């Protein structure tokens, strides 16, 4: 099959953006059409990202698409904006596709509780546009713009319910997110003033060698701003308020892909492919990751609100990812990216089950629930699958990725970090046993006697993610690993010179 990435790459951005503008306009006249169209859009995006994966596996090289045909002058200065498709971008695109598809399926019935549905889908698809653009782009300022598109849509989506808590959470998130954007923009400005380039490959080319103090200052500003977006401790204060207050499918998107696509991915891309990974930088990332892991899980132990507990666990699991990637060894990067992919699936599934429970019972407090597994069997089973995944119970995907992270830490000689990872894993297991016991098992309370299972569409999206939780354990198998995870690892490991060669060396490809 002839898959042409030159047509597909801009489509990944244009399709959600176009539908995101069309759906609010036409949603007023026809009901239910916006549900179908939104789910169709995310399904199409998922199919396109899988096609791009197939192309990536066949061609095995980085694809570059130059927007508008603007490229490079004779002297070698880049003045166009490019979209870069390498192994890591493909992995992120697939994650965004899967989680957004499950979330739109879930929204079609979940959003019956809210008004203004067509605007919800408009904002949702704009968020997907922002995320797709952020993982594809090869230009620093374009990255900032797409991150902002996704972030502003998410501020509005967190406030969507317009309750007191939703608005307060959204305002806090907005203020912190905007401060983060200011830091990132100053960082980008400093980099431009020092090196005169905004294209990531060209910045990397001009930045090789000893780092001037200006570029280190810019890196610190970028890490602070992006750390706020990725919710690393000590920049995490907005997440425990924002993620529970959003409607459940939005919480799934926020925790599942947004903090990764505009937080962790951007940090990783900037550190590995623009600055160049050094041991000091790696140690900084490892320390940040470990602190996030530990603080996240300790604060989660005390929570009785189901979604707030899940939000704290998000902080903890992102800590795992950053710890693993901070190791810098091939196994470490592989483990970190694998855990990132797994977390996207099982955390979004957990938030969807929390939403399903809230849809039927109207409460998020664990103490008020009880015995729901008898009333909502599919929700209960999916929740159990996700809880076992996040706790690292074999044969689910979380076990393999956490084991790889611990092995990678031990191989690199960092025993202390490995011990912390094991301790946090045990505490995560304890926390989720609590959730399962109070929410799904035990006596059915009288007020829940009439609770039924959620509508079929919502069950389909949850079961789909649960099946993926099991299936993604297979990504470790050598054939699949070489197809999906190894190219992503190589994309980061090739460092500054590999990235620059892949992007700038491809003058001949495409139009």
């Amino acid at each position: 099959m002839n898959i042409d990435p030159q047509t597909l790459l801009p489509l990944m951005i244009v399709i959600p953006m176009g539908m995101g503008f069309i759906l609010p306009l036409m949603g007023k006249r026809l009901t239910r059409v916006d549900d179908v169209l939104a789910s169709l859009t995310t399904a199409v995006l998922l199919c396109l990202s899988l096609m791009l994966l197939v192309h990536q596996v066949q061609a095995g090289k980085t694809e570059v698409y130059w927007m508008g045909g603007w490229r490079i002058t004779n002297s070698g200065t880049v003045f166009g904006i490019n979209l870069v498709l390498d192994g890591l971008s493909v992995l992120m695109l697939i994650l965004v596709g899967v989680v957004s598809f499950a979330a739109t399926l879930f929204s079609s019935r979940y959003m019956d509780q809210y008004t203004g549905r067509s605007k919800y889908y408009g904002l949702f698809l704009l968020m997907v546009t922002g995320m797709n653009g952020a993982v594809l782009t090869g230009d620093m300022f374009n990255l900032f713009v797409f991150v902002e598109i996704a972030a502003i849509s998410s501020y509005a989506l967190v406030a969507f319910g317009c309750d007191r808590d939703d608005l307060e959470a959204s305002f806090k998130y907005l203020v912190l997110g905007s401060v983060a954007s200011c830091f990132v923009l100053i960082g980008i400005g400093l980099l431009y003033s020092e090196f005169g380039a905004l294209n990531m490959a060209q910045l990397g080319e001009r930045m090789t060698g000893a780092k001037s103090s200006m570029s280190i200052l810019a890196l610190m500003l970028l890490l602070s701003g992006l750390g706020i977006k990725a919710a690393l401790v000590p920049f995490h204060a907005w997440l425990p308020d924002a993620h529970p207050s959003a409607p459940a499918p939005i919480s799934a998107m926020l925790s599942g892909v947004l903090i990764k696509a505009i937080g962790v991915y951007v940090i990783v891309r900037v550190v590995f492919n623009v600055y160049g990974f050094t041991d000091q930088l790696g140690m900084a990332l490892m320390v940040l990751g470990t602190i996030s892991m530990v603080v996240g899980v300790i604060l989660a132990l005390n929570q009785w609100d189901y979604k707030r507990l899940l939000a704290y666990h998000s902080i903890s699991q992102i800590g795992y990812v950053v710890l693993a990637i901070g190791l810098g060894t091939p196994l470490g990067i592989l483990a970190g990216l694998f855990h990132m992919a797994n977390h996207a699936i099982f955390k979004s599934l957990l938030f969807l089950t929390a939403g399903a429970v809230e849809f039927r019972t109207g409460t998020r407090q664990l103490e008020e629930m009880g015995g729901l597994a008898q009333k909502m069997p599919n929700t209960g089973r999916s929740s159990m699958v996700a809880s076992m995944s996040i706790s690292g119970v074999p044969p689910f995907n979380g076990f393999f990725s956490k084991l790889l992270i611990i092995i990678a830490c031990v191989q690199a000689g960092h025993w202390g970090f490995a011990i912390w990872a094991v301790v946090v894993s045990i505490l995560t297991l304890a926390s989720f046993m609590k959730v399962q016991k109070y929410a799904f098992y035990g006596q059915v309370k009288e007020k829940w006697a009439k609770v039924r299972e959620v509508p079929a569409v919502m069950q389909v999206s949850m079961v789909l993610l649960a099946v993926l939780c099991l299936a993604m354990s297979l990504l470790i198998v050598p054939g699949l690993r070489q197809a999906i995870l190894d190219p992503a690892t190589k994309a980061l490991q090739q460092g500054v010179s590999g990235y620059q060669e892949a992007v700038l060396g491809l003058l001949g490809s495409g139009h």
Partner: protein
Amino acid sequence: MLYVLCLILFMIGLYGVVSQKNLIKIIIGLTVMEFAVNVFLVMIGYRRGGMAPILERGMESGAGWDKFLAQAVDPLPQAMVLTAIVINLAVLALSVAIAMRLYQKYGTYDITVIRGLRG
């Protein structure tokens, strides 16, 4: 020297965000911070005695072109600032809308009162 003034403006904005108790003052602090960043970006492109980067007729080659190259201010940060202004406008509009809704719910703009979410 001007960069130091820009930094002071940024710090004033950040101080406003961090210390003020009124929602509207927090929004104003945020906006001042964003203005400081925009001014910083424009200053990056500036050249002493610079002229606007507009290529007029007769300047495409020869002495005119050399003068243009020597004196024109860098237009790229100006393009970045235009985009940043639009992004900040969107955030401002959204934040004011949320602040107005919060006033409807709580009757006050005071953040010490609007503290439903804790722990």
